[in-house]
């Protein structure tokens, strides 16, 4: 019982401590203020500048920035699509993987381009090493960097600049000077701790009882490092970080779980520094931290209950429900990771979410519905910005003043954009779930009966929309309707909530700043923190309470007699 909470407490504090200098480093990397530009950047950056050509030097307004982002993301999509399409003819395929079905290719490429990493395939069965490295792992670097770049652009706009930087500069710096060194360090640590790293094909073992066991392996350590750091979450193997080769020991589990949260936390500090509002960042981090700790505590308590299916049998009580768990991670590791991975939009798992106790399974869903508890690298903070705009608007209305954020007036145009970006989230989750729960597209693909089957459909659309990527994996989701619908949802739910906030930022930056007076509603105090927390929770509850009741809560209540 003690280790269940003590270990996460220790490593959470460690990650929090590490996020501070990392956030400072990231802000320095992205600093384009007069002082930042004057700072010498070293030979590597001038080499980058030469390699990328003249586009490096232009300063872009938000529209040009968005165009560059979409152009590069289109290239990402196209290159990865071609790699997967041509898999059979490409090298690094020692086990001879076959061709992939076109709708699966679309889904997978949309998934990794949008930093979601929803997987309708199992890596060790479907993907060659070339596809894993040059399509999927590559996208894990550059899609994460895209999110960080977008946040840097937004932060500068909120700092009052209409020229918000240059997308190519930002995305290159995030890729080569942030994610790459972090992944190198983590990849080496994980390899030393026992994760395989080889280009040899599967090993063939002759077991003690005379059977033959084929053991899939590959360049796993490199893949897992960036998967965890970039809130990607797409595993090398089907069952992700439950697999002994992705997560061999208790300590790799602790390190991988910490790596999920590191960059998203540092992003809040980067935002605070670039926007010149470090105190605001403290409040935002506190709100996110309260939600994270609350989620971890709740999930651990709920998961400590006995497996409901075993209550009537002569089975000794375990410290927690063990279905879908690995013993080497210890009690509490599964629910703690489940909350971390859905609070951020990582989506890797170290326990199967489908087999969590019914109410425990609700907690990761809540993480994805809110999608602001640190969230995806860069984009989590951008989502929180949308809630901040709503919160200052509500607070402004309550006291009868024109709402302001960081000295700029928030008016109809900004509110429309903010609500557009906020409302597509429930629209895709609830609309998609309704459609698939009502038709054979969904009902023929669920593994479990009744309300748990509904939860499987609901989880899939929540995961796709939140760009999370985890799943209630009992769902038979490799069908054309699932591949096409979630593929489209992932792309739209990725880019609309990036573009709309940049538009808001651009619009705010173009306004004349109003001087802060004693009458200004401050966004850097505990009062605003409470308003923000309330806004997130109330909006979330209003939107998602009905489906929560239909899915996990109904299943939990139906167990009443057994308990």
């Amino acid at each position: 019982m003690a280790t269940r909470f003590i270990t996460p407490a220790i490593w959470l504090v460690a990650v929090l401590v590490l996020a501070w200098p990392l956030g400072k480093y990231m802000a320095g990397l992205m600093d384009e203020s007069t002082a930042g530009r004057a700072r010498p950047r070293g030979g590597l950056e001038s080499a980058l500048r030469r390699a990328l050509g003249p586009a490096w030097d232009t300063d872009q307004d938000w529209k040009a920035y968005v165009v560059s982002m979409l152009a590069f993301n289109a290239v990402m999509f196209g290159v990865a699509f071609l790699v997967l399409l041509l898999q059979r003819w490409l090298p690094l395929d020692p086990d001879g993987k076959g061709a992939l079905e076109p709708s699966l290719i679309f889904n997978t490429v949309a998934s990794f381009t949008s930093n979601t990493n929803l997987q309708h395939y199992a890596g060790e069965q479907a993907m060659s090493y070339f596809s894993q490295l040059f399509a999927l792992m590559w996208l894990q670097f550059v899609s994460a960097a895209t999110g960080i770049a977008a946040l840097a652009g937004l932060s500068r706009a909120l700092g009052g600049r209409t020229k918000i930087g240059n997308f190519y500069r930002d995305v290159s710096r995030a890729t080569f000077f942030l994610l790459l060194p972090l992944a190198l360090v983590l990849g080496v640590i994980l390899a030393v701790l026992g994760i395989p790293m080889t280009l040899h094909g599967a090993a063939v073992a002759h077991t003690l009882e005379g059977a033959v066991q084929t053991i899939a392996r590959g360049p796993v350590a490199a893949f897992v490092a960036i998967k965890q750091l970039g809130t990607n979450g797409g595993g090398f193997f089907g069952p992700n970080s439950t697999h002994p080769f992705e997560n061999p020991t208790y300590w790799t589990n602790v390190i991988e779980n910490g790596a999920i949260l590191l960059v998203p936390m540092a992003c809040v500090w980067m935002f605070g520094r670039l926007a010149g509002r470090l105190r605001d960042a403290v409040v935002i981090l506190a709100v996110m931290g309260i939600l994270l700790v609350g989620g971890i505590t709740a999930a651990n308590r709920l998961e400590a209950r006995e497996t409901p299916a075993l209550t009537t049998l002569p089975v000794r009580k375990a410290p927690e429900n063990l279905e879908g768990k690995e013993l080497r991670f210890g009690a509490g590791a599964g629910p703690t990771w489940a909350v971390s991975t859905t609070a951020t939009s990582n989506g890797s798992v170290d326990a199967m979410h489908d087999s969590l106790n019914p109410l425990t399974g609700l907690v990761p869903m809540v993480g994805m519905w809110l999608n602001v508890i640190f969230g995806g690298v860069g984009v989590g903070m951008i989502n929180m910005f949308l809630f901040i705009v709503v919160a200052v608007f509500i607070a402004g209305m309550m006291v009868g003043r024109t709402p302001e954020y960081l000295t700029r007036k928030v008016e109809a145009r900004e509110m429309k954009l903010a609500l557009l970006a906020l409302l597509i989230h429930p629209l895709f989750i609830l609309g998609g779930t309704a459609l698939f729960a009502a038709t054979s597209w969904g009902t023929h693909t669920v593994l479990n009966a009744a309300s748990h089957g509904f939860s499987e459909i609901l989880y899939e659309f929540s995961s796709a929309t939140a760009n999370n990527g985890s799943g209630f994996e009992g769902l038979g989701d490799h069908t054309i309707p699932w591949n096409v619908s979630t593929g489209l949802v992932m792309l739209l739910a990725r880019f609309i909530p990036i573009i709309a906030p940049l538009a808001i930022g651009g619009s705010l930056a173009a306004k004349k700043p109003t001087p802060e007076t004693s009458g200004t509603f401050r966004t850097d105090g505990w009062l605003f923190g409470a308003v923000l927390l309330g806004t997130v929770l109330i909006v979330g509850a209003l939107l998602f309470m009905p489906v929560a009741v239909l899915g996990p809560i109904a299943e939990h209540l139906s167990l009443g007699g057994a308990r």
Partner: protein
Amino acid sequence: MREWTTSIRLWLLSWAVCCVAYTAVILGVAHAAAPDAAEGSLLTDSAGRVVGALRVAQAFTSPEYFWPRPSAADYNAAAASGSNLSSASPKITARADSIIARLGGGPADSVPADLVTASGSGLDPDITLAGALFQVPRVARARGVDPAAVERLVRSRARRVGGLPGAPRIVRVLPLNLALDRAFPAGRS
């Protein structure tokens, strides 16, 4: 047009750095620092033949071996999977029922939960110490050896989760069975 040329340059550069160079560095360091783990920590018998991987469960059904946790993937290490059943699913109850019958558990001798629940990967290499001790009488009988000797072997191979004081003890099944074959070879038919 400039957007496309810049994007394509960035693609090629990031391929070279993040896919080629990064992978090569991790490959090199892994093979220098942990060459055995880099290839999957494979275990070999005295003849040098690969019998399995240290950290990957394999099927055991004969009475003279310790059995691992049930596997939804049937111990297929090329297609790992959990059961993905709801923790309240009657299918889990039915599966547990048949395993309890096979293990010889009952109201007087309840079975440790890890032996009747499928792991996340279907390849969990460990069972709890309690799960191993539960199987000692069967293994000892099948090998015709003293149960106390088998229990000593099991306890000597148990380790605490994460090496943390006070944490529950677990045992890796495949190395345990290999050690069993070395210590009590006569029992093998």
